């Protein structure tokens, strides 16, 4: 597998994964709301070794004008990886993968954001991945949702996201880069906890129907953990530490 450590144990006999986590344990997550002065709303997330900054602008005038919609506002998302976010320099031009992730994140946020309140406007979400380590789309979606709330865009619910997957024949929560490369399946899930609705579900790999169900359940549970942290980030910013 391309110079990768073939002897790496993804899951040992005690149920401990390659980075020391248990099977249902997410990586360390830190979310901070705000931080960018010139953006209407912003958020910063550290999700394991992922570091992502999100800025939200709007609602604002749509340019070019022909993109505007007289019935509703539009959401525009740009997911971008910095050249230094990965070990080998990444070309800063938007790649096919980045364009796809932008679209996927946009569609995962759309059910939550109440854009129909702002016809003829646009909400722009800029996602900059400063450091990538697997699962950036989930981390980016989580942070984007916090940034949108920070910008005061009306939302039906927050969107929390995390990946579940299958590694060494076991369903695990929050697949990291190594597990993603060597594992059997990866399933990013975006979830609205209060409305109990899934807004993003992708699957790369093969699962049996039972494993699929288990995977979704594990992912949804993980999203609830992430949601608590999103909540904490916003509460800390707006109501000081320990608002009721």
């Amino acid at each position, binding site marked *: 597998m391309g110079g990768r450590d073939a002897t790496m144990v993804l899951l040992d006999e005690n149920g401990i994964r390659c980075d020391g986590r248990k099977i249902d344990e997410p990586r360390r997550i830190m979310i901070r709301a705000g931080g960018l002065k010139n953006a209407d*709303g912003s958020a910063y997330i550290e999700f394991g070794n992922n570091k992502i900054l999100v800025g939200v602008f709007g609602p604002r005038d749509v340019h070019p004008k022909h993109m505007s919609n007289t019935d509703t506002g539009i959401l525009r998302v740009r997911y971008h990886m910095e050249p230094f976010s990965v070990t080998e320099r990444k070309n800063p031009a938007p790649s096919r993968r980045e364009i796809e992730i932008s679209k996927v994140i946009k569609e995962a946020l759309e059910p939550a954001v*109440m854009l129909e309140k702002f016809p*003829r406007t646009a909400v722009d979400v800029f996602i900059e991945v400063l450091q990538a380590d697997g699962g950036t789309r989930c981390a980016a979606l989580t942070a984007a949702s916090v940034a949108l709330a920070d910008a005061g865009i009306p939302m039906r*619910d927050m969107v929390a996201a995390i990946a579940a997957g299958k590694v060494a024949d076991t369903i695990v929560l929050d697949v990291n880069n190594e597990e993603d490369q060597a594992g059997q399946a990866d399933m990013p899930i975006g979830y609205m906890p*209060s409305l109990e609705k899934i807004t993003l579900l992708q699957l790369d790999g093969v699962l049996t129907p039972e494993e699929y169900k288990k995977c979704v359940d594990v992912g949804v549970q993980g999203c609830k953990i992430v949601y608590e942290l999103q909540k904490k980030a916003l509460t800390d910013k707006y109501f000081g530490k320990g608002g009721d």
Partner: protein
Amino acid sequence: MMDNKRKYVIPGDVITTGPFRPEQNVILEGDKIISTTIGISEIYDDVVKVITLTGKYIPKIDDLVIGKINSHTSLSWELDINSCYVGFLPAQDVFGRDFSAHADELSSKLKTGDLVATRIANFDRTRDPLVTISDRDLGKIDSGVLVKISPSKVPRLIGKKGSMIQMIEMATDAAVTIGQNGWVVISCESPEGLLKAKKAIEMVNEKAHVANLTDQIKEMLQIKDNES
């Protein structure tokens, strides 16, 4: 105040369930009433609402807003009103009904960059807000200092029945015009009063959620009074 169940909420928080009427910034989903913004929820009588702490200004009919002239055509001005929409001020409003696009030059009355106190005359989701200056206290602002605060904090700056702004005006001898869009113009004879009023308004902007803000502002204005 705790009786009517004030709570800090973020989008997606379930405020309550049951037979309540959803008002500002909440949605009814099944029997759950969910907040759509970051703010403070209030329940009284059968009404549930959330007072938002963030967000842009959304025009409302009859709101007093302060606008800045952006540009003009031969028939109207366009105003920046710190919103996602531009304010539209027709020339008839300024020149009167006998306005003629040939004879009257719009820039003779209001130039680009001028500040204007206006009222939202009409606004719906199909077109940009129409503003008017034909009312008492409206029109071009000739002097004063513009302070920009968050539109969501305007109610806090005004206070209950105008208590907060009256207190600031009394203590500093300044005249303060508050636009609902978060733009505030202070004019004052004395430079000290002007600075003090500006500082007080900025303090409200920063500490809008603090419970004893009125006391803190009072204290700040008072201390300054003793010093001078």
